[in-house]
């Protein structure tokens, strides 16, 4: 069984992304890093993974072994402005989204389940801290300085040999260094807004995780090569030229694209299909979207308001275990939609769309928009 220790010999540049992200565990201050892990294709368990928490409250919880979290009447649920039921701790003021819509279930039943889950996840976190096998990630709040980081590291190490990564927003590429106080200090270009935490800017976080894993293992600060296009050769070679697609008349949906052999691919990895689409004024369909099976994680559909110009769309998804082959491509929805064009198809083992800021040159020249 592979080691989960942050000091495992496999460096950040060589580990598959899903394995790399599994080395880390979020301890706040909100759900952003938890979403980084989701978009990277993993769903680890974590007491604080989707919780909002102030550092002073987290320190109190660590110093008290989270003893009061979820005990007695500590927890309560309430309808949030997002219309979901949120759960909050009276003692520690931790707050998280239960995932239940307000009105969808009896709040008392939700509360009972959340109390059990908190108890379970609390036990796991304390075990993780004892083992010291995860790199604990804490987003720094605006007021959190070296004194807070030092206090947090002390509080964590009371439980075990913790590695703590404090992350701040700073211009420039993602970076990490060992602070003289013993914790790791990392930077990403920007954080997602607190009221739009799902708007994660993913690439810097992934770079940060790789650099951190390299640093902890004492390896050179290298990043993996850019992903390669996994589409069949004939499609790769001709992808610069616009292709015309005519959805079948009378059909609610038509999918255009190759059958991909899934055998050589890493089923645990997130894959992203990117392409450029050109929607003429005559298109009458209800939507055009990139498609990789039906397990979408993130996606960007075509804007039907943008006509007679190229626009980039993508979908990130996980691959189904039970299929040997899978069709990937473009789905046009709506009967008698009419034709449209595409170019620059790129399928990669990556949670991010292909970086090209413009469609292929041949496509631009042939379809000026």
């Amino acid at each position, binding site marked *: *069984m592979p080691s*989960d220790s942050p000091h495992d010999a496999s460096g950040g540049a060589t580990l598959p992304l899903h394995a790399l992200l*599994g080395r880390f565990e979020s301890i706040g201050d909100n759900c952003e890093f938890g979403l980084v892990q989701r978009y990277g294709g993993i*769903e*680890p*368990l*974590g007491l604080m*993974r989707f919780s909002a928490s102030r550092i002073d409250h987290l320190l109190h919880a660590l110093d008290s072994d989270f003893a009061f979290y979820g005990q007695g009447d500590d927890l309560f649920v309430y309808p949030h402005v997002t219309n979901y039921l949120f759960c909050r701790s009276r003692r520690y003021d931790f707050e998280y989204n*239960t*995932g239940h819509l307000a009105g969808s279930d009896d709040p008392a039943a939700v509360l009972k*389940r959340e109390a*059990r*889950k908190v108890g*379970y*996840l609390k036990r*796991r976190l304390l*075990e*993780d801290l004892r*083992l010291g*096998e995860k790199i604990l990630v804490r987003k720094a709040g605006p007021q959190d300085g070296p004194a807070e980081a030092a206090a947090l590291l002390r509080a964590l190490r009371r439980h075990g040999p913790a590695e703590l990564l404090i992350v701040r927003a700073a211009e420039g590429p993602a970076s990490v260094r060992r602070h003289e106080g013993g914790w790791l200090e990392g930077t990403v270009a920007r954080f997602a807004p607190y009221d739009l935490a799902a708007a994660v800017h993913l690439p810097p976080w992934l770079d940060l995780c790789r650099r951190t894993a390299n640093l902890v293992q004492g390896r050179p600060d290298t990043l993996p090569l850019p992903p390669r296009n996994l589409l069949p050769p004939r499609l790769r070679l001709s992808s610069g030229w616009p292709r015309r697609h005519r959805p079948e008349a009378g059909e609610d949906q038509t999918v255009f694209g190759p059958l991909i052999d899934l055998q050589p691919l890493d089923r*645990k990895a997130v894959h992203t299909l990117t392409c450029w689409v050109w929607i003429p004024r005559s298109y009458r369909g209800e939507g055009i979207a990139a498609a990789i099976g039906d*397990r979408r994680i993130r996606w960007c559909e075509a804007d039907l308001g943008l006509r007679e110009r190229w626009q980039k769309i993508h979908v990130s998804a*996980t691959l*189904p*275990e*039970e299929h040997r082959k899978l069709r990937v491509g473009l789905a046009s929805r709506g009967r008698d939609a009419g034709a449209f064009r595409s170019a620059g198809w790129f399928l990669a083992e990556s949670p991010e769309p292909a970086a090209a800021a413009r469609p292929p040159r041949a496509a631009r020249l042939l379809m000026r928009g």
Partner: protein
Amino acid sequence: MTPDEIDARLTEIFREVFDDPTLVLRPEMTARDVAGWDSGRMVDILMATEEAFGITFTTREVDALARVGDLAETVARKLAGG
């Protein structure tokens, strides 16, 4: 407890967690194969499994669970004293 008995009990657990009496488990099944199987439901599955079999999973054991088959094998190993 035989492997078939473990599978039968796990099937009951999954059916209860997902409120689906028709759910059929396969060893190769993963979270991606069952709608709504997120980290929250995973906690429900783990707690119910620990309670049903009188075992406790370690963090390492949980992190190594990729498929339903892994869960069944881990339960069997722990029941056998491993």
